[in-house]
């Protein structure tokens, strides 16, 4: 399985691995800050953003869609905050109002407009199209050293790698304030941390991961990867640094196991069709969480 794997399997694996790690990194802090469902909200509102971008530009191209999705994510965060403050509604309910409405608007826009000639539909948005991200120009493992065929990699690959490195750099640079606002926001404020700014940047970063990952892997995997690896790691350790590294390893592990299970398990069992890779990766991340919730060393609350 040399050249065939490089052409058909390598890029989906790499893309979902980078997507998983890019989502898990900000997820660590969101889980600690009790903002876990922000990821859920963002991955729902990405759809209207992309539809509006398509309607405005009339084509399915990378940058307008990324901008549309990012814009929708920011608008939703602002609207949630506005309803919460002006209407004195609790956070969860305000979020429920906004993300369902924006998703509904996105679906209706999509159904009303003529998108039959482009590959844009609700199921694509939810499940992703991991299986179509192939690297036909490759010619075995040697292609990895050939700049000409490297340039033919699917654009989602470069997008995901860039997103992952931007998010890693942010986490590295703002490590101290991030940890502070995650564990004790009041204390962080007293020693002069710009908690509001850092908190907002964290949400923007999660949105960036979600938007970059969404096109390739779909929104289910985004929510699962923002939450499951960090939650799993949290039950295994008390040290935040270890937790973050563990969550990256778990995201990577879930991707590899899930991808193999989706692609080869049915073949080994004698069926000819593969399963949804995105769905399988998220399922594996859930199984890992279940495992650590039963056996994890630090699974219990410290009273």
């Amino acid at each position, binding site marked *: 399985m040399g050249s065939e794997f490089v052409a058909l399997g390598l890029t989906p694996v790499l893309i979902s691995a980078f997507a998983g790690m890019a989502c898990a990194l900000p997820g660590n802090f969101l*889980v600690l800050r*009790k*903002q*876990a*469902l922000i*990821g*859920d909200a963002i991955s729902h509102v990405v759809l209207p953003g992309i539809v509006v971008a398509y309607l405005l530009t009339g084509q399915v191209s990378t940058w307008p869609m990324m901008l549309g999705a990012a814009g929708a994510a920011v608008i939703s965060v602002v609207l949630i905050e506005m*309803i919460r403050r*002006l*209407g*004195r*509604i*609790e956070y*969860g*309910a*305000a*979020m*429920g*109002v906004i993300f*369902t*409405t924006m*998703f*509904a*608007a996105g*679906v*209706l826009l999509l*159904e009303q407009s003529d998108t039959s000639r482009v590959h844009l539909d*609700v*199921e694509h948005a*939810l499940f992703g199209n991991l299986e179509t991200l192939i690297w036909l120009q490759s010619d075995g493992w040697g292609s990895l050293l050939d700049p000409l065929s490297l340039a033919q990699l699917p654009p989602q690959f470069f997008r995901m790698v860039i997103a992952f490195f931007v998010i890693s750099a942010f986490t590295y640079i703002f490590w101290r304030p991030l940890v502070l606002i995650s564990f004790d926001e009041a204390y962080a404020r007293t020693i002069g941390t710009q908690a509001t700014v850092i908190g907002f940047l964290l949400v923007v970063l999660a949105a960036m991961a979600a938007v970059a990952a969404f096109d390739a892997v779909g929104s*289910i995997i985004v*929510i*699962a990867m*923002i*939450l*499951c690896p960090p*939650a799993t790691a*949290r*039950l295994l350790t008390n040290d935040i640094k270890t937790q973050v590294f563990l969550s990256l390893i778990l995201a990577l592990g879930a991707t590899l196991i899930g991808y193999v299970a*989706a692609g080869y398990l049915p073949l080994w069992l004698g069926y000819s*069709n*593969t*399963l*949804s890779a*995105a*769905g*399988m*990766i*998220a*399922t594996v*991340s*859930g199984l890992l*969480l279940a495992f650590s*919730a039963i056996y*994890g060393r*630090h*699974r*219990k*609350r*410290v009273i």
Partner: protein
Amino acid sequence: MLWAALSLSLGYNATLVTLGASLLGAAAGMAGTFLYLRKNALISDAISHATLPGLGFAFLVAFGFGIDGRQLLILLSGSALSAALGLYFVNWLTRETRLTQDTAIGCVLSVFFAFGVVLLTIIQVIPAGRKAGLESFLLGSTAGMLYSDALLILILSIITALVLFVFLRPIKLVVFDQGYSETLGISVRRVDFIILMVTLAVTVLGMKIVGLILIVALLIIPAVSARFWSERTNIILVTATLFGALSGYIGSAISAVSPGLPTGPIIVLCCFGLFLFSFLFAPKRGVLAVALDHYRFQKAVHLTQGLLSMAAAQPIYEPKTQRLLRRLGYIRADGVATETGKSLAAKTLLNEKRWSYWQEILKESDQLDGQAVFNLMDIETKLTPDQIKSIDQGLALKQGERM
């Protein structure tokens, strides 16, 4: 066309669907109110996404036994079972591990939904599965709904609403005052369980009409909208029920005349329309009412401060205060007080003196609670003539002491 749908004269099926959607909306509004008041609104998100694997599994099992897996009752039973399992996992993770509830909700909803997608890819391979149209459960579709399906949803919605109605009293008590209801011997855990089971029933029944992704909206938005209109549980409950029913009714009617569109999003946008109206125009808690209150308060403060300065013969520099006084005719354009201005200033000063004396008395006897802004109100409308008389005597005595 729309009028025909709204007046229920668009055929038997459409009528059943519209009635079913209205009843479902009413039940969702009620159940959602309790979820919201128990600060548990987003658990419905986990319940609804967790239905997908059950849906797929029920189809596969039915297919394995050679039954037509499209039978709605079979599909709904499977969905209900897996939603219950998801709910159990959320509670288990929150209780047994140190993960918070929102993390547990997010993990369960994404993993269950993902596993459901895996099952869907299996079903799509089966020839019967390809035309089963299970995707219609994602966003809801009433187009081409069978008569028996519509009837089933209608009957089950009536049962759900009845169950909620029977347990209304204990649920309301727990929502309103948990401690008190415990002393009456009502089990809070059991009431929470009933609320969640009704939510589950609403979710599963709503799958065909609203779709499992958006049923959350029908549970959250009417309740949140109703909260703007009142502080009383009863009124909130009735309003939310009405809002839910209205959204289901109008939404399914619009959808009946435009069969190409999925029903769920239309119903959700109807919900949002009612929310927006409540958010802006509700008395007291609505945004406009709050802004108006703020404006009135600001005006009263400026006026009182300006009149007090006039009474003390101090110059007024604040441009807003100047404008206000001039417009009301209390000062002339050159800043000199008019006759009405002078008499009102004296009255305001007296009011202020009386209030501050009253405040001192309250403070001495430890009855002053909080920082109430007294001097903006006319004391003669707030206290009895006897009280004012004693205040005046006290003030006169004080003035005598000073002289």
